């Protein structure tokens, strides 16, 4: 039996909680705790084995006896000095439980976003923590946790090495496979069909993705529906990759007990721990669940809509005509007639008002009247209901958003026209103000220099400046009222799009996992003190992933939306007359955290496939 030398001070003993019952059950026997310790790890007790089974032979190096229990006693005496017992519940690998020091990431590693962009101090602190100097180099806990995660494998390996330690036979779970073997031919045929179907779908999705993202007219930026289709295509393109990733690892996991050179094997196996492929598993099933969920929502939404389409069409007709035509018409007319006692320039106000009224009439004739017609609305609602039944609620919602943006296109036009006029005016006024102060912008050096102006220059500049100053209130009145309208339209669009985003990217699977089995979704470990007298006993437990962490992409998105539309920065842009536009593709990219930037190429996929089948072949050999 290898003796424990002086180096082994201060090494902890990890104790499976299952052994506590065992020692009570086998009260009458003398037991010895057999532990495994690799280089750089603590002792992990694998099993308590009756002393008479061990006596006659020596254990080989990775295994040591760390504790003994006398017969008729419940107390263990440990051979390691100054130690702590850390009790743990062995994670069941087949149920995808594992320990992890860091919270597992639900998004792809290259798509991690920082939630608190604004807190610069916190960011500096994080940078400091990232510095190697302030990081712990003691990797023992990490290594030991890896050992714990492979507990069942190591236990099986122990029994394989010393079969006579085995007191009860291990259950074999091979029944299902035998049943499936009988249907092998059928299965192979089905698999072939599925394979070709998958490849076909994959190709189709890639084509649609490329059409939507073409360089000339990226539809994704223009329409929410296109964006929704694009998202679905990307998801479909990514499914095979995810499936392969999960299954390659599963096959490896099944092959685990075959490794017999234990110490080296476990070192090799570390990288294939569940934590490696597990986020993929969560992402894959999350996407699937969300799609099904979406379709079920769509069914409900669609059926309600079909039932009530007549009433809804009538209400919508009235609301659209009132909000998007009558209301704006009134506002524009009012602006021409000195609103709220503010004396505007009559000629300019009349001109602008007439121009906008023509635009309103045009858009009314072209869009609002035909689109908000009751029959058209009924037709649209019917189509919407059917679409939502087939493709899901998000699809219907995104069509609603697109419909709304077509209807409110005149608001966008007004906003752009008035902001352009305002921007020009502001720019000219700023440069004339330099003239006013006897200064001039030096473009070459990008600074403001003193300049001596001739009388004619001065007079002309002053005339224009005075005229522009007197015209400012008029332009400002139009600009501000249309900006308010535009911001209202943007708000409606953003609310609808947020609902779509929620339906598309809700971490449903992760949340359900957390409810069902918190150990399957680790967000770190916690140590609690159980007993202090004698040798201190701790218990190591999995901390489930925090809810905040699951919703982090949404928090980031909300931050971005607030930054883009409702912040001082936006107000500054509005004051300067710069456009405030929805950069849809950029904004919602944050939520695509579980998708790669571009769909993975079919050749790469084939390589992966070959790798996968290659491993399979090796396994069969």
């Amino acid at each position, binding site marked *: 039996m290898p003796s424990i030398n002086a180096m082994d001070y201060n090494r902890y003993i990890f104790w499976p909680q299952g052994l506590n019952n065992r020692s009570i059950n086998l009260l009458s026997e003398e037991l010895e705790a057999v532990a495994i310790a690799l280089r750089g790890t603590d002792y992990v007790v694998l099993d308590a084995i009756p002393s008479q089974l061990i006596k006659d032979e020596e254990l080989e190096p990775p295994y040591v006896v760390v504790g003994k229990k006398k017969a008729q006693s419940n107390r263990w005496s440990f051979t390691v000095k100054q130690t702590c017992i850390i009790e743990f519940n062995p994670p069941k690998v087949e149920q995808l439980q594992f320990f992890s020091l860091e919270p597992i990431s639900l998004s792809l590693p290259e798509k991690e976003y920082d939630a608190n962009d604004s807190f610069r101090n916190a960011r500096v602190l994080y940078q400091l923590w990232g510095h190697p100097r302030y990081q712990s180099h003691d990797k023992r806990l990490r290594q030991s946790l890896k050992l714990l995660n492979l507990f069942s494998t190591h236990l099986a390996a122990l029994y394989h090495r010393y079969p006579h330690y085995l007191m009860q036979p291990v259950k074999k779970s091979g029944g299902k496979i035998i049943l499936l073997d009988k249907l092998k031919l059928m299965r192979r045929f089905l698999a072939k069909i599925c394979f070709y179907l998958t490849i076909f779908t994959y190709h189709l999705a890639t084509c649609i993705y490329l059409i939507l993202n073409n360089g000339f007219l990226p539809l994704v930026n223009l329409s929410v529906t296109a964006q929704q289709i694009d998202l679905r295509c990307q998801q479909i393109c990514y499914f095979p990759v995810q499936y392969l990733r999960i299954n390659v690892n599963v096959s490896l996991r099944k092959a685990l007990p075959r490794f017999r050179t234990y110490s080296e094997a476990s070192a090799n196996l570390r990288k294939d721990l569940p934590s490696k492929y597990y986020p993929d598993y969560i992402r894959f099933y999350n996407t699937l669940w969300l799609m099904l969920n979406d379709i079920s929502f769509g069914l409900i939404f669609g059926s309600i809509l079909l039932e009530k389409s007549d009433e809804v069409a009538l209400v919508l007709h009235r609301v659209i005509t009132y909000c998007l035509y009558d209301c704006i018409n009134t506002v524009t007319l009012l602006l021409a007639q000195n609103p709220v006692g503010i004396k505007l320039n009559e000629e300019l106000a009349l001109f602008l008002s007439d121009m906008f009224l023509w635009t309103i009439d045009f858009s009314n004739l072209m869009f609002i009247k035909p689109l908000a017609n009751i029959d058209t609305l009924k037709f649209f609602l019917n189509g919407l209901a059917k679409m939502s039944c087939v493709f899901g609620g998000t699809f219907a919602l995104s069509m609603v958003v697109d419909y709304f943006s077509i209807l409110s296109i005149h608001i966008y036009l007004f906003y752009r026209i008035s902001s352009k006029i305002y921007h020009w005016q502001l720019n000219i006024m700023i440069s004339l103000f330099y003239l006013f102060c006897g200064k001039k912008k030096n473009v070459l050096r990008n600074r403001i220099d003193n300049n001596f102006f001739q009388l004619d220059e001065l*007079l002309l500049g002053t005339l224009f400046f005075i005229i522009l100053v007197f015209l400012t209130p008029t332009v400002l009145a139009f600009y501000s009222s249309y900006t308010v309208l535009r911001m209202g339209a943007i708000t409606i669009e953003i609310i609808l799009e947020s609902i779509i985003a929620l339906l598309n990217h809700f971490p449903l699977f992760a949340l359900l996992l957390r409810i069902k089995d918190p150990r399957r979704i680790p967000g770190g470990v916690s140590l609690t003190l159980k007993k202090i007298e004698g040798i201190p006993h701790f218990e190591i437990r999995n901390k489930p992933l925090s809810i905040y962490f699951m919703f982090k992409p949404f928090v980031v998105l909300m931050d971005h939306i607030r930054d883009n539309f409702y912040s001082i920065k936006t107000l500054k842009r509005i004051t300067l007359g710069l456009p405030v536009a929805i950069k849809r593709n950029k904004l919602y990219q944050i939520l695509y955290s579980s998708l790669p930037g571009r769909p993975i190429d079919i050749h790469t996929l084939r390589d992966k496939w070959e790798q996968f089948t290659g491993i399979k072949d090796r396994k069969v050999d």
Partner: protein
Amino acid sequence: MQDHKKEPWKRILWIRQDYPDNYTDPEFIRHLQRLRFKDKYAWPSPESATPVVQVRTDLVLFYNKLLSTSLVFIAFNFIYHYKVDPLPYTIAMTVLILYLSWRSTRRWVDLRSSLVITFAMLTLSPVLKSLSKTTASNSIWTLAFWLTLAYVGSMSPNPESQSSNLSTNLLLAIVTVLASRLNSSTQVFCFLFICIQLNLILPKLVVFNTRLYALVLSTVVFTYVILALGFSYAIVAWCLASFYIFVLPQWFVYWQTNYRGYEASLSRVWECQRPILD
């Protein structure tokens, strides 16, 4: 002899001079000593005070500007109230200005820039007329009053310097505000033209004889005041003007010789430099 070859010390920090850092100008010490020996008899003598003529010239320059400003209102009143057709007067004025400019500089004015300005004004006069049309007349008078105050305040005291951009802007603002009350764009154009000529161009041409100019201007303004407001107002204004021109300079010199302390005479020569903020 060596000292004579040296550049005389200048009271400027930004050039490197051939003097030690703690160098003190002997002139400064001499000045201080003279003040100390004289002690309380160091009042500036009448000779050292500013001459009355110079003070009066400065004051007359400001007086001229004030009168020019009042000409704006006189012109406006003629066009707005008395419904005088301003076109012949404008032409006459232009001819006069051309003649004066030819006399003072012995060459004709820059034709291109004057044409550009004239046509720009011609084009913009309908716009200027409509700029503040919707505003009530009372607000216009108030606005014009405050703008005039600001204009008088912003006029540069130095006669040689270019009239500052701020005062030009304010003058045009006054004209724009008043122009909205006029009936036709021809009137607006003429009004603008007359105002610019009277306030910006004419003062530059008559630098050679400010007193004569002041006399002519006063005659015009007082005649108008007598005609429009009556003798009582004219007498009050005349009293104020004569006090300003004849009494005030004497009084100033008297105050300078008798009431200003010797610190002032020191700081007049060795005053602390004001930083030029840019």
